[in-house]
């Protein structure tokens, strides 16, 4: 029997539920943790970012309009599929981050558990962040959190799967849609995650995954008038992060920027810290009318 030919894979972007190549036609080399060639990935351009924002905007009302319970079911199904691909994720995380198989398994398990954690929060977050405010009069005064809209996320550079899940999952769990700029050096688990999302019940456009250089693409997301919030967790360069924050101010975006240069330990429990930041609190007076 003759030897099989390698089936080589070029990793593509994930926009609006489809896997396009970069509009620019560019790709870049992704090396593994030991510096050897691993695969080619698409190098996203500003127009890919624009297309991703359009897809996220189109998907947003439908996703936010679902009940929290339904969003939870959809996200839990994603966790089921992640579990089915566990072996592939372990291999990719291990090779990309240079972890032993045992450590990589722990990271993948933590990622899936984190997804389940946020799936569980979808129909509970309103009860925790919302309130029936006490008022001195015959009225109701109710505060409810609503999704902010389209969120751009620069995912952590060093933690290619667990970090990515930790920043992206809470955004979609609370009803916003997201454009993720994956880790530049280790983008492959992100695209594999996108392949899981594409075969789950998640509507196209709720999560959009770009691979490429943060310094090139992030400024277009930070200035984009149709992006409501931006998470700069994965921007390592303090100068760039400062510029992006200033850019984002031009269109009054919410900005999440980690304090200090210390890299986060993603294995810590997620807590509820990231649940509220992409939600807007709406407070209404409700006269009893009696």
């Amino acid at each position, binding site marked *: 029997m003759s030897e099989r030919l390698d089936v080589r894979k070029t990793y593509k972007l994930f926009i609006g539920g489809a896997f396009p190549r970069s509009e620019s036609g560019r790709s870049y080399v992704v090396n593994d943790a030991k510096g050897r060639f691993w695969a080619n990935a698409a190098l996203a351009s500003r127009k890919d970012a624009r297309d991703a*924002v359009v897809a996220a*905007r189109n998907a947003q009302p439908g996703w936010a309009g679902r009940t929290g319970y339904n969003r939870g079911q959809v996200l839990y199904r994603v966790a089921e599929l992640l579990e089915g691909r566990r072996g592939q994720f372990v291999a990719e995380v291990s090779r990309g981050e240079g972890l032993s198989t045992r450590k990589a398994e722990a990271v993948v398990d933590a990622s899936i558990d984190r997804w389940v954690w946020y799936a569980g929060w979808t129909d509970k977050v309103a009860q925790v962040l919302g309130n029936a405010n006490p008022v001195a009069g015959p009225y109701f005064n109710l505060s409810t959190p609503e999704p902010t809209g389209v969120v751009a996320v620069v995912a952590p550079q060093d933690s290619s799967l667990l970090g990515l899940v930790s920043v992206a999952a809470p955004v979609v769990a609370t009803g916003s849609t997201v454009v993720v700029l994956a880790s530049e050096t280790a983008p492959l688990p992100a695209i594999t995650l996108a392949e899981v999302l594409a075969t789950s019940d998640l509507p196209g456009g709720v999560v959009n995954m770009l691979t490429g250089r943060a310094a090139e693409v992030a400024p277009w997301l930070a*200035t*984009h*008038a*149709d*992006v409501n919030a931006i998470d700069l967790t994965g921007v390592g360069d303090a100068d760039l992060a400062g510029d992006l924050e200033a*850019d984002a101010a*031009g*269109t009054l975006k919410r900005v999440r920027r980690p304090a200090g240069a210390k890299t986060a330990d993603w294995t810590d429990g997620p807590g509820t810290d990231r649940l509220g930041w992409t939600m807007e609190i709406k407070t209404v007076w409700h006269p009893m009318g009696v």
Partner: protein
Amino acid sequence: MPTGASATPSRGLAEVAASEASLRRFLAGLPGVDQVGAEARAATLATRSIKTTAKATAIDLAIRMIDLTTLEGTDTEGKVRTLVAKALRPDPLDPGCPSVAAVCVYPDRVGLARQALGAASLHVASVATAFPAGRSSLVVKLRDTADAVEAGADEIDMVIDRGAFLSGRAMAVLDEIVAVKQACGRAHLKVILETGELVTYDNVRRAAWLAMLAGADFVKTSTGKVQPAATMPVTLVMLEAVRDFRAATGRQVGVKAAGGIRSSKDAIRYLVMTGEVAGNDWLDPDWFRFGASSLLNDLLLQRQRMATGHYSGPDYVTLD
């Protein structure tokens, strides 16, 4: 060139409409459209890359060419007033943004639109002749047209009788257009071919010639109520027809592409095609129009993108 052999083509064309038989002979004698060729030509023209200053010019030209349209059963007074306000100042944040060419409404909203426009020089277009089906008697159609003109419309969009055209009664179609043209008085007449119902490109070419022979000032692709509406190849055939008609008679007729054009990219493709096929003389709001509503917002977003250097979003233009 269908009339190229004739020494005095305009007189030749006058005789065409003399009888049913001569008209049919003329229309049947028009050269057939190469369907594959027309589609390939339109697709090639759509690949042209228009960037930077050329794009900025094209966007402003496209805005100036828009007939801002609302043709819904649910049109209220308020809807028409907001439409007129938007037509006058499409981008309130930018005083440099040009106005559109016209507002297009149903006849019973013409008076209101005219009043809302005040002294502004925008045109008021009105659909008439039992739009969109055109299934009514000639008396009603003429009354409909006269009503709109009396109320202040200076452009009338009429529909042709597709039933008569498809069953070969070209003279009936021609007579109707002539009668409506008369009822228009000084108002411009745009003749809607409703290409989505004409089935073939050959029919589109014949209908366009028929309308021009009858005195149309504009030929328009569609009502927007039938799918498919305006497409690139159909518009290409009509642009060829107006070009050939001017060569034959010396009279220039405009083209209006209506329905289904929603993005700036599409609009710029139509402009490229107009310049290439009909000629640069048609690249003017007097000779080429877009019938559209949502297109304007996309043009404004692109315009803002070029002015500010960053992408804009639907929060920065009005809801329609």
